[in-house]
């Protein structure tokens, strides 16, 4: 209840805002922030709990986006089904990639996921029906009532997905799955010897994480009314998904949320006022700083501070 009441209230507030507030820009920007919350939370399931770095966020995200776009183009499928199909496809990609490379040491998995991005992008670029390198223009259907604009509807939808993703991560963290994943991160050999089904748990985390990333990508074609490979498979999604949990804190389900909110706000501020290069530089410096000096992230810093002030 400590989790569900606040998140339910937040979601209700978001929906109410979408029905009352007129300004579209707020929702346009808010959607991106919430999307990064989902991506960072998804990344943390495998990267934070199990300690396997995934650079392949754009591959899972892009596969989800393209699944949705192609299904919309072919059958005009409703958005809900698009999201489910996207999650299924990206989960499948996670299964294949996981089974092939999660037996190896972490760094090999990390490199293999970079490979996934380029391979997915190449496949899409060479697929005429999906628009190839030039992309695909899509016509948005009218928004579902009670919303008066599609962007506002997507904003609330992404908010619901963010709550769902965080709830899932929280469940994992507190169940035996999370304990198993943490055991893998601390010492894989010891975990294996104590009877933790390491490979099965890792693959499960990889599938779940991939499916969430795919779901986060599914509304993207509708959000932009357009989809195109170079920006969809952009490495910036990998940067955001990796840096947010590392900065916010990988050990707690709130870590990725805090990190994503912080990075997205910096991004909104810096990109609008100065330049987008500076934004990447800030992310890079923060990432190195936190990884070196505060391995537990912001959540860890807050915990330490609270312990000190109470004791």
């Amino acid at each position, binding site marked *: 209840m400590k989790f569900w009441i606040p998140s339910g209230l937040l979601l209700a507030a978001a929906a109410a805002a979408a029905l009352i507030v007129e300004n579209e820009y707020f929702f346009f920007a808010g959607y991106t922030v919430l999307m990064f919350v989902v991506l960072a939370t998804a990344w943390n399931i495998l990267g934070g709990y199990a300690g396997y*770095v995934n650079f392949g966020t754009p591959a899972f995200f892009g596969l989800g986006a393209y699944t949705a776009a192609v299904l919309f183009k072919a059958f005009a499928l409703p958005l809900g089904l698009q999201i489910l199909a996207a999650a299924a496809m990206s989960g499948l990609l996670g299964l294949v990639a996981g089974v092939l490379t999660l037996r190896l040491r972490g760094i090999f998995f990390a*490199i*293999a996921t*970079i*490979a996934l991005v380029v391979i997915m992008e190449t496949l899409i670029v060479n697929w005429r029906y999906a628009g190839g390198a030039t992309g695909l223009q899509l016509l948005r259907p009218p928004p579902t009532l009670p919303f008066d604009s599609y962007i506002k509807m997507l904003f609330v939808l992404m908010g619901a997905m963010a709550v769902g993703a965080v709830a899932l991560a929280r469940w994992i963290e507190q169940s035996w799955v999370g304990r198993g994943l943490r055991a893998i991160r601390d010492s894989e050999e010891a975990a294996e010897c104590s009877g933790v089904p390491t490979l099965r748990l890792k693959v499960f985390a990889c599938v779940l994480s991939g499916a969430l990333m795919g779901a986060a990508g599914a509304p993207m074609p509708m959000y932009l009314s357009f989809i195109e490979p170079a920006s969809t498979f952009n490495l910036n999604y990998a940067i955001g998904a*990796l840096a947010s949990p590392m900065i916010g804190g990988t050990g707690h389900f709130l870590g990725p949320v805090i990190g994503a909110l912080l990075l997205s706000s910096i991004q909104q501020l810096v990109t609008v006022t100065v330049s987008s290069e*500076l934004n*990447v530089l800030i992310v890079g410096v923060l990432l190195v700083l936190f990884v070196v000096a505060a391995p537990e992230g912001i959540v860890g810093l807050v915990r330490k501070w609270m312990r000190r002030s109470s004791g």
Partner: protein
Amino acid sequence: MRRGDPAPHFFDESMIFSFELLYEAVVFGILLGCFYAAVSIGLSVAFGLLDVPHVAHPAVMVAGAYGTWVLAGYGFDPILAGLTLMPLFFLAGMALYRFYYEAFARRGSNAGVRGIAFFFGVALIIEVGLIVLFGVDQRTVEASYIGSSVAFGDMRIPQRFLVGGGVALVLMATLTLYLSKTFTGRAIKAVAQDEPALRLMGADPVRIKQWAFGIATAVAALSGALLIIIGPVEPALDRVYIGRTFSVVVLAGLGSMTGTLAAGLILGISESIVLMLFGASWAPAVSFGLLLLVLAVRPQGLFGR
């Protein structure tokens, strides 16, 4: 196709398949392969021998290419410029390793996620640093061997690829000799094979690793010079080369120098043949496809220890 990619400049896409073309593709692939081996050899030391998850290596290389560009502005020959940069990069590499060691390796045997994230952050900082300093435009250098080509029968081979291949072979040979004949070189190999044993014998593995990482970084400076000789360079070029260099190092079997050359050739030839048969839009997937295949089927590589 990605900007600044050297491979696609060679073929005209309207060409039709013939054995002559296949022959050309193989010759070009061999030259390209020597170049790929040269840009991967630094990583072969840093990742293959020292086990450092150095995903920033291609970014260091691109920094070397920009350094070459700056020196070339003062009238340096690109290769000479690359050689001039080597001592500087050597020191920078030693400093980077010392920092990495103090921050991560000292605390545990495996830095894991944080080590990878650290080098990822370093790569971002280098990339954006280059954008801030030089802008996002492509840069090229001038030299007598860039832009001209040599005729072999009906074939014309761009001279820059011959120079690139030649420097690559000399670099590989020097490093192989260094690692097998000199005292420090053997020490580097020893630290890769059995670090605790080295410590028991009274040697300091950290100093040796630091030295080796310095060498790997110095080699990256020369690789950067080759990079800008082969084609135009832009700050984000490292993203393409992460895949190529890691696939060569993994395919080679970690830390094997002869393996690195063989793997570079395999990658170069397969990329060049795919380019000829299917066109430039399929070429970027070759290195990564090869990498996934190797990881799935034979993770210890062709010449694995």
